[in-house]
């Protein structure tokens, strides 16, 4: 029992550290949130949305702004470690490195989910549609779970390149595409009033993403960060 508790303890310490850094600096979340909002407005002007078009595009817009904002947060989470050389400290710690992955992923997941939860009422207001539904929140959490675990994994790759964090979107967006497709389709289904059971294939796809990317993190994080 002890190793497992120790492992979970490491995950919790990393998560706590990230929350503490965010709480004291308050630099990640506000940036993500404002960025997501700006995307909403940008799209409105760029696409010249008419009211009836808006309804069908809400799910897509929600996920595009979530995906962009999450990338910002994930990038910040890892570059913060890199800038302050905290990453070396983490790597020196005599703990399993996959625990670091799960801790970072959980941190990113918490922050992006928070951004998502704030975005939902804002979207409801702007697009005259009630987005605060339990089913949609469930879809969002599942989708973000898969997205942030893949993102956290890839951010450890991109941070080691010469271009640093610039590379993350290029690596992340194409690989995350099935997740985004599933999330958008499931969200659109929920918004058009269908039951969650009807979208079970999309939900399973999201769940498969969560499991697959976390398993990949468990296996590969150690290899990625070895130096």
């Amino acid at each position, binding site marked *: 029992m002890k190793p497992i508790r120790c492992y979970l303890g490491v995950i919790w310490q990393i998560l706590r550290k990230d929350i503490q850094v965010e709480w004291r600096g308050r630099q990640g979340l506000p940036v993500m949130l404002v960025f997501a909002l700006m995307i909403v407005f940008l799209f409105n002007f760029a696409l010249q949305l008419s009211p009836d078009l808006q309804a069908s595009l809400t799910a897509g817009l929600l996920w595009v702004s979530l995906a962009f904002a999450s990338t910002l947060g994930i990038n910040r989470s890892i570059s913060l470690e890199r800038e302050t050389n905290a990453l070396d400290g983490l790597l020196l710690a005599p703990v399993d490195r996959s625990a670091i992955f799960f801790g970072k992923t959980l941190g990113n997941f918490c922050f992006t989910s928070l951004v998502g939860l704030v975005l939902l009422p804002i979207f409801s207001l702007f697009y005259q549609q009630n987005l605060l539904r339990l089913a949609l929140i469930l879809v969002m959490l599942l989708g973000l779970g898969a997205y942030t675990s893949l993102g956290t994994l890839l951010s450890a790759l991109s941070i080691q390149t010469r271009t640093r964090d610039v590379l993350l979107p290029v690596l992340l967006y194409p690989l995350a595409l099935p997740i985004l497709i*599933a999330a958008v389709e499931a969200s659109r289904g929920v918004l058009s009033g269908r039951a969650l059971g009807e979208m079970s294939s999309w939900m399973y796809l999201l769940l498969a993403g969560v499991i697959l990317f976390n398993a990949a993190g468990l296996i590969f994080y150690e290899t990625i960060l070895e130096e």
Partner: protein
Amino acid sequence: MPKKPSLLTFLDISALILIPVALVLIVFFTPVEAVMGSVQKVFYFHVSAAWAGMLSFILGAVAGAGYLTSRRISWDWLSAAAIEVGLVFAVIAILSGMIWARPIWNTWWVWDPRLTTTTIMALIYLAYFILRAGLTTPEARARLGGVYAILAVMTVPLTFFSIRLFRTIHPVVIATGGDGSAFNMTPRMLTALFVSLFVFSILLAALVWHRFRLAQWQNDLPQEVQ
């Protein structure tokens, strides 16, 4: 510089001979498709290129895993060679598909799920080379490239599953129907298709091998010119 293996020479010559043979089969041997006409004949090389692309992406991931377990740099040469050649084949599949789509769908490009995801797959592997270019040591290129190649292949089934769920206008030629006739083609078309698949597999093996040998030579060069 190692001598060129005779098996590779054999593959080269086989590909050189068999590609014209496949072309002759496609042009003269196969019947003209009833509805689409002769433009359908692009299908044989289109499917073969897609097949070769898929095959080499899988090979790239397997070789990546080979590097991660054995830490021998030659696995990475194979992985990068396979993915580079695979990318070329994927682009050929996309372009030949567009040539077919122009008269049949009346447009070069449709936002059809299969086209979109195939292009996304090409982008995934384009990103692979951007990643490699950003890494400074051959060891990091091999290690992170290997991880990325495996990750990329992992998402391919997810992508294909998401296409199945979407409605697609892409023809499903090889159906998984229960009536026993899995192929929606005449025997002659089938023969030409299998010959094309075989030829492209040989071409793929030859190209990957050549690219592998190039990586080997690059490795033998002094560090400054690499």
